[in-house]
């Protein structure tokens, strides 16, 4: 006799409703592949193209605490907004973000990144200048590479000075697909 999917779901919903979960996660389908999405009561904390929970759960526990639980409910809003984005019906996200445990430089770069408009691109150097560190283009590249919340924090809109795409933690195919979706290419 095993736990029915219905009972399992009820437990997970109750855990979130009662505020007992440090970080809830679920897998979300998208045109650029499956996404591992995690949110806390502070907001969206992570989107990853790597959906292997083994890697992800330990990482989330280090950020937020050990009460990490799969729960569709906790990522409902993120799922809805991502769906709208991929349908071309949403150009900006209204999600609050959980940027806990990130160094100050990373946070300031990500805040500037969040201001890069839909359908436009900027460069690593320009982003570095915008946080007052004009020579830190390489460090900005590292921040992009480790961006915990890609898509919503649009590191796909950051390209090289010569206009080439340079790189993307999720693979260049995905960067290309996102920029094409936004009509930037």
């Amino acid at each position, binding site marked *: *006799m095993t736990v029915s999917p219905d*009972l399992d779901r009820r*437990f997970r919903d109750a855990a979130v409703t009662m505020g*007992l979960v*440090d970080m809830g996660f679920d897998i979300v389908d998208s045109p650029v592949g499956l996404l591992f999405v995690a949110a806390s009561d502070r907001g969206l904390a992570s989107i990853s193209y790597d959906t292997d929970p083994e890697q992800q759960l330990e990482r989330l526990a280090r950020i937020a*605490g*050990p*009460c*990490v*639980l799969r729960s569709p409910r906790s990522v409902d809003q993120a799922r809805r907004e991502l769906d709208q984005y991929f349908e071309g019906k949403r150009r900006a996200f209204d999600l609050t973000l959980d940027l806990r445990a990130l160094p100050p430089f990373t946070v300031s770069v990500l805040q500037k990144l969040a201001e890069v408009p839909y359908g436009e691109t900027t460069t690593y150097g320009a982003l570095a200048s915008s946080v007052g560190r004009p020579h830190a283009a390489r460090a900005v590249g590292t921040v992009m590479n480790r961006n915990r919340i890609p898509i919503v924090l649009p590191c796909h809109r950051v390209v090289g000075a010569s206009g080439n795409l340079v790189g993307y933690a999720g693979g260049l195919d995905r960067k290309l697909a996102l920029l094409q979706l936004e009509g930037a290419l």
Partner: protein
Amino acid sequence: MASVAIPPFEHFYEQHRAEVFRVLRRRVGAQRAEDAFQETFLRALQAYRRLEHGEHLRAWVLTIAGNVAVDTLRRVRPQSELVETGAEDDRPAYEELAPLTAGLSPKERAAVVLRYGYDLSYDQIAAALGSSEQAARQAASTGVRRLRRRST
């Protein structure tokens, strides 16, 4: 001192949910097993953040389940006596130490074994027993005193 890391709750839940559900079905019946299951893991989740290490989590969650089962049966038959669990094959892991602690009340025995056998903290034991931290402390110390008296 190195101790076993506390796994993310999802792993803990996946690892133990089937066994917990089986135990609860046997103890409280199919009709009430679902509510008892939910309550067991909600209690565990509530106490999980305060765990100090990841050892003996199976014994811990089965103790919580056993306690939820007792509460459930008590609610159903308020006049009946406590259900004896000693002879069942779904004994919680802590009852492996039963011979040493025979003669104590179930609560004292659980408190003593979880404290001194498994080295759990009092708030963890409280969560397992569904009582206050102070009551857990009390049960453990009364139990130990009783054992000392018996061994002299």
